[in-house]
């Protein structure tokens, strides 16, 4: 199969998933117990106001009609309007998206920077003390609640140790962002690094036993070059795809971390919207996040197919 055909096939496979995602997001409102309009507006709301909202959201129509209307709006890029800010929910979320993308990207880079050296140490000292120490990291690391790690980092680096980093906010300019977002990104990285370390170590061990590494060694290449030029280059490809597969966990982590560090991103918008019972925003953010995850899956698959042609013949 050519790469083009592979991409087309992957895109076609996305259609039913996209449909399913919109159905789930649509049904969120029907999970609200009782009358959603009444629950969302609260007990103080007058009956006409509730009836108006019910009509506005089409809750008085049959389900298929409601879904068709919902889809019609989404296709036109209209994700509903916020009950609180009186503007488009999609607009509000997209406005804050760059901040969250910064956090995700920075966190992903830091997680690779943490995982690669540790996994390399583990694989080269297989079954010796350094390896045992490295293997403890994923075991213990996955149990750290990301928001709590954020609080502890804040405590240590933000409040003590010379107040190296700001305790919240987003900063301005490239280096401002880099400085202000370091602790939040580190928190996000800590959450995902254990998974990366585990898989990178495993794939490094596999590569180190392969024929071409043996060949490289028998040619008399120094071990350092074998490791960096031959083994690591191959293992990193698989690490990046593991990162892609776990993007959902990474993205979900940012929601909570933004709350800890008061970063004005999409996650914070979602949490605030929850306390204001601003349903359209919660729906819009959930939809945007899942679109993001699906796109990353797609990109990961395509990059993987580019780098490893065997994937296309699967």
């Amino acid at each position, binding site marked *: 199969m050519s790469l083009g055909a592979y991409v087309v096939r992957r895109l076609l496979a996305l259609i039913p*998933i996209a449909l399913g995602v919109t159905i789930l997001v649509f049904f969120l409102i029907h999970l609200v117990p009782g009358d959603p309009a009444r629950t969302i507006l609260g007990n103080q709301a007058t009956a006409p106001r509730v009836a108006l909202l019910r009509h506005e959201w089409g809750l008085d129509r049959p389900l298929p009609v409601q879904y068709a209307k919902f889809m019609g709006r989404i296709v036109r890029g209209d994700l509903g309007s916020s009950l609180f800010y009186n503007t488009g929910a999609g607009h509000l979320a997209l406005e804050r998206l760059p901040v969250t993308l910064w956090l995700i990207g920075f966190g992903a880079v830091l997680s690779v920077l943490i995982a690669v050296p540790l996994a390399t140490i583990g694989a080269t000292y297989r079954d010796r003390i350094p390896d045992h120490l490295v293997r403890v990291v994923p075991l213990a690391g996955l*149990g750290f609640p990301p928001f709590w790690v954020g609080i502890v980092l804040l405590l240590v680096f933000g409040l003590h140790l010379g107040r190296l980093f700001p305790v919240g906010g987003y900063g301005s300019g490239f280096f401002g962002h880099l400085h202000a977002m370091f602790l939040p990104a580190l928190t996000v990285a800590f959450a995902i690094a254990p998974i990366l370390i585990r898989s990178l170590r495993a794939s490094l061990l596999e590569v180190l036993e392969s024929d071409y590494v043996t060949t490289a060694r028998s040619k008399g290449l120094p071990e350092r070059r074998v490791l960096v030029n031959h083994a690591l280059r191959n293992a990193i490809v698989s690490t990046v795809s593991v990162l892609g597969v776990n993007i959902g966990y990474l993205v979900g982590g940012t929601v909570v971390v933004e709350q800890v560090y008061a970063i004005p991103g999409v996650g914070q918008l979602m949490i605030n919207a929850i306390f204001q019972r601003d349903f359209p925003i919660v729906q819009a953010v959930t939809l945007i996040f899942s679109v993001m995850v699906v796109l990353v899956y797609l990109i990961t698959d395509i990059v993987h197919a580019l780098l490893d042609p065997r994937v296309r013949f699967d």
Partner: protein
Amino acid sequence: MAIAAEAVAEATFVEHSRGFRSRWYRTPSFVTGVSILGLIVLAAILAPVIAMHNPTDQDLLHTLAGPSWSHLLGTDDLGRDVWARLVYGARTDLQIAFLAVLFPFAIGTTIGLLSGYYGRWVDTIANWFVNVVVAFPFYVLIIALVFALGSGTRNIYIAITIVGWVSYTRIVRGEVLVAKRRDYVLAARSAGLSDPRILGRHLLPNVITQAIVFACSDIVLDILAIVTLGYLGLGVQRPRPDWGTMIADGQTYLTTHWMLSTIPGIAVVITALGLSLLADGLADLLRPE
């Protein structure tokens, strides 16, 4: 023939458990994991005995006190005993986490078993559901679901089940695809055993070990989710003690009383470590030699 087929399946199962019985104490991660978890579960069960204070009793004359003989870990901003809240929090969070893992485990395993065994349209539909759920970031979907359903324990179970079953389905489906080509299943089939019997008596015992191992690490994820929901104010409702709300309440006093937020977090980390070690040891033990 049918009996012979049953015997093969029986033998593989017995082999596992015999290996398990003679080797469990020689697997350090398993022993450590069981010990850590055992201590925490014991503390949770004995909470009324070892807490010494009521976790919700306020003492507004002794707020934010440091550790002392009467309050081992001090008191919080409402003068409640931190140690008492910690052990009662263990009770709350462990109970919810252990129960929450059961539903996704049962539902996911069943769907995985059916989709792997029958294939075709059953598999197509199951896969579609799996892919749709996986398209959502874990925390985002859980938070959105709990928001829609309303906070409270019952809705935490529902949200975790909707998000959590997919992993079990993926694992069990993969195992079934391999197992159904093995001799014992082919033998059972050609002997004319009914599908429910093959699924329940022969396939299930052989594929469930992987699901059990995963369940141990899945509880870790559930505890994190419960604590995170508590922290965000969407999970366990005050005044019921929960580690997540304890961390959130302590955050206000981070500059002056850093212990209030740190201690419940350490409890989460230690519990999770116990479960991870247990899962790691189980995986080692249940791996057929």
